[in-house]
């Protein structure tokens, strides 16, 4: 397979940039690499006893241990707390919110029935999906394009500056981002005031519920697109210059080289990130939306996460929120399984393989 060398290096290159969320399969990764080292005869590797395999991978397993522990403590154990979704949970029943779980009455699926009957919930679901698709179409390609752009810059100084400028907004808080947008696109912002001087009234992007989804996407792009290019740059840097030279020798122009060398090199990374993104589809922003909730109203701004937060934390209806969170989790799982399957069908690694 022609992309045999490329995807592997790209796959390795992406590792440093992987987020903690993905570090859970760290041991699996380690094992795979270990196996690959002696993969001349895969059957033999499979026959190694468990103990031998443990001894062989000892170091790697030890290295993975802290991440696994963190994952257990912060991601797996709290899953048990979901039982409150089947209760009328009142955290104030006892001195300790945890003990209160044992004292709260069970109500079966009552919370779920309430949720399904709540039009605000369905509104939040709808908003979530609309935002997800918009972000997929408008946001997802931007870091790839930016990475290609940066990659084409030859002078290291210019490149470093461009990268720094693009990364910077990622470190701004959402409050700051929203304020900056407000100062520019708000009803009393620079654009609105300039237009007013010329007799044009009514420019206000910040409080228009109809265009809110585009506004949110634009904010996300401004803030995070630069950060997103890191993964792609890493993948690009691992493409051997020989390939480009050989292609150029054969008379391939800029676009042909892009199409036949650069993009295939990025393909596995794109597929992987796409699967991860789809699995995360129901998470489309939280602080950002909460901050602008009053500006456009609940109907336009409420997504699943803000819905859960508002009902659970703000209004202390914890069981209701837990049930909504559980629904989100189940749908998210189905999405990631589906996306992974599609990735396999396309001949990519995806997130995991049996």
């Amino acid at each position: 397979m022609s992309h045999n060398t490329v995807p592997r290096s790209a796959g390795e290159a992406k590792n440093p940039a992987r987020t903690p969320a993905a570090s859970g399969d760290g041991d699996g990764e380690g094992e795979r690499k270990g196996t690959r080292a002696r993969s001349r005869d895969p059957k033999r590797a499979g026959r190694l006893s468990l103990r031998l395999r443990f001894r062989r991978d000892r170091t790697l397993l030890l290295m993975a241990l802290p991440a696994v522990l963190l994952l257990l403590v912060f991601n797996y154990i709290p899953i048990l707390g979901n039982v409150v979704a089947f209760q009328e949970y009142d955290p104030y029943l006892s001195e300790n919110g945890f003990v209160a779980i044992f004292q709260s009455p069970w109500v079966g699926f009552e919370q779920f029935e309430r949720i399904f009957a709540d039009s605000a919930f369905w509104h939040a679901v709808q908003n979530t999906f609309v935002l997800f698709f918009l972000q997929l179409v408008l946001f997802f390609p931007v870091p790839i394009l930016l990475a290609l752009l940066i990659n084409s810059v030859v002078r290291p100084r210019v490149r470093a500056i461009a990268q720094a400028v693009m990364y910077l907004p990622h470190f701004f808080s959402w409050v700051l981002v929203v304020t900056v947008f407000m100062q520019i696109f708000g009803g009393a912002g620079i654009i609105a005031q300039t237009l007013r001087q010329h007799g044009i009234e009514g420019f206000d992007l910040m409080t228009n519920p109809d265009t809110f989804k585009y506004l949110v996407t634009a904010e996300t792009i401004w803030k995070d697109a630069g950060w997103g290019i890191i993964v792609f740059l890493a993948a690009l840097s691992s493409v051997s210059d020989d390939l480009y030279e050989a292609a150029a020798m054969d008379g391939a122009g800029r676009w042909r080289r892009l199409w036949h060398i650069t993009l295939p090199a990025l393909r596995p990374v794109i597929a992987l990130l796409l699967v991860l993104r789809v699995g995360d589809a129901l998470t489309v922003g939280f602080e950002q939306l909460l901050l602008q909730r009053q500006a456009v109203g609940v109907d336009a701004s409420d997504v699943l996460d803000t819905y859960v937060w508002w009902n659970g934390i703000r209004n202390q209806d914890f069981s209701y929120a837990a049930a909504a969170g559980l629904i989100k989790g189940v749908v998210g799982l189905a999405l990631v399984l589906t996306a992974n399957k599609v990735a396999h069908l396309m001949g990519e690694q995806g997130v995991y393989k049996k």
Partner: protein
Amino acid sequence: MTPNSATSAPSRRSFLASTAVAAAAVAGGAPLLSACGGSQSGSKDGTTSGKDAAKILPAYVASTVVAPDIPAKNGSAAGFSKAIPTADLKTSVTKKLGSGGRLRIMSPFWGTPPKGDNPYYKAMNEAIGVDVTWQNQDGVTYDEKLGAVLASSEIPDVVVVPGWNLNGKIPGAINAKFADLGPYLSGDKVRDYPNLAAVPTEAWQRGIFGGQLRAIPFPAPYVTDIAPLYRKDLFDKKGYSVPTSPDDFLSWAKEATDARSKVWACDDMKWTAFNVFGVLSGSDKALWWNMDGGKLVNRIETEEYLEALEWTRKLYAAKVVHPDAVSGKAGGNAGNRLTSGQVLVYSQNISDWWGKTAEQRTQNPDFEIAAFDFFGPDGGDPKLWAVQPANIFTFITKTASEQQIKDFLAVCNFCAAPYGTKEFMLTAYGVEGTHYETEKGLPVKTTQGVNEVNGAFDYTGNPAPYIAYPDFPDVTRGMVEWQQRMGAFTTKSSFFGLTVTEPNRWANLADSFEQLEDDVVRGRKKISDMQQAVSDWKSKGGDELRDWYKKLLDDTGSAN
């Protein structure tokens, strides 16, 4: 439930219910019936008044160090506009009551909190004898943190809770998590803390949560705390006269708005509208209800409520409201829009009258704001509803030791010192020479004083409502007189003075109304959507809640 833009704290300096009013409430108050929904039943919902309340309320021992030069009237605060020379200040705390122990206090803070180890906090801690560590949280979003903090097992020793944050299950949480102060304060025990003994009884009555005296209340005038504040200096310059009816306001607003020069007539006026149209008070959930023609009616069911929203909607539709106000919290601080002259009128806690004046005068000697009088829907007299006589509470956790509770009461007693005492000067103005200078006999805060002596100790204990700004006598007089004029139009609704814990199953019933109001006034939802929401509210439990409140009223009687 005050405007979410509440940027300035209801400062301790801003309120008062004179001792005279308090005495009248005790002596002439309605004969309270016995029995209570809460104290005996395990669920702790309901309220406590009458004989049950009498058993746990602290005794009232008046203490007047200085007679106010503007006596309280019609539920107003008492006004002190004359400075007391340092040499004449009395001592109200004769010996240090604190044991030197530590207390962590979580409190809302409006503005930018000072550093934790600043000279003001140090001086206060030193004087009280308690090592207080402040966890100041943003007051505007305080309600968003409170539920989670109370659900955790690590609650700060002392927690300050504003009444408008008592939403959802918070009252239940308070009953579960905070200590009963009855054993330390009930009856004559309060005499150990003379300044607390001078706190009016109707304020203490508000401190009864779940059948026990749990809160140190922050006494407040019962006159509405929301005032329509306007830039008097700019009004004078432009020759505007103060609007006298809703229609008048709208036409003035259209004239005054000049968006090209970045001037809008007003900010969000929803809370002014509620008062103009005589909507039942929204500041406390029990005040939403009132007995009308033998039937309990909720504010959201009234015609007035819809009229107020409709008028506010017209203001938004006429584009006379600042565009950033449309964005709500994301739009930034409403107070800054007023001081920068981008808006001319805004609805805010009346304490901003002093707050903004004190803040701006240092840079702009001409800066002047005032509150205009509420007018009725047709331009006549308004019908106003009383707010609770105390609406900020301070609690200490159940897990606190006896020593910690005593230290806590020492802090509260110190901060409740009346005007004319050394303790008051330290609490309100800080350390002389550092936080304020005496100029021409008047205490004038330095920049350091403005930054540090603000919030925090303001909420932990206060004497009867008062307004005392000797450095701004006109402001003091203006505020008290406004309260007295508005107090004359003020009526107490059925649950005035009572702290009610609603049963859990209905606690979240009205959660969405504030958001819906904001959507309606901004034209994103229609009045008919509101009517639909009200009818949903009724069928989802509003009518049952009405019966519950009715029973409560029948069982315990009204407090006024």
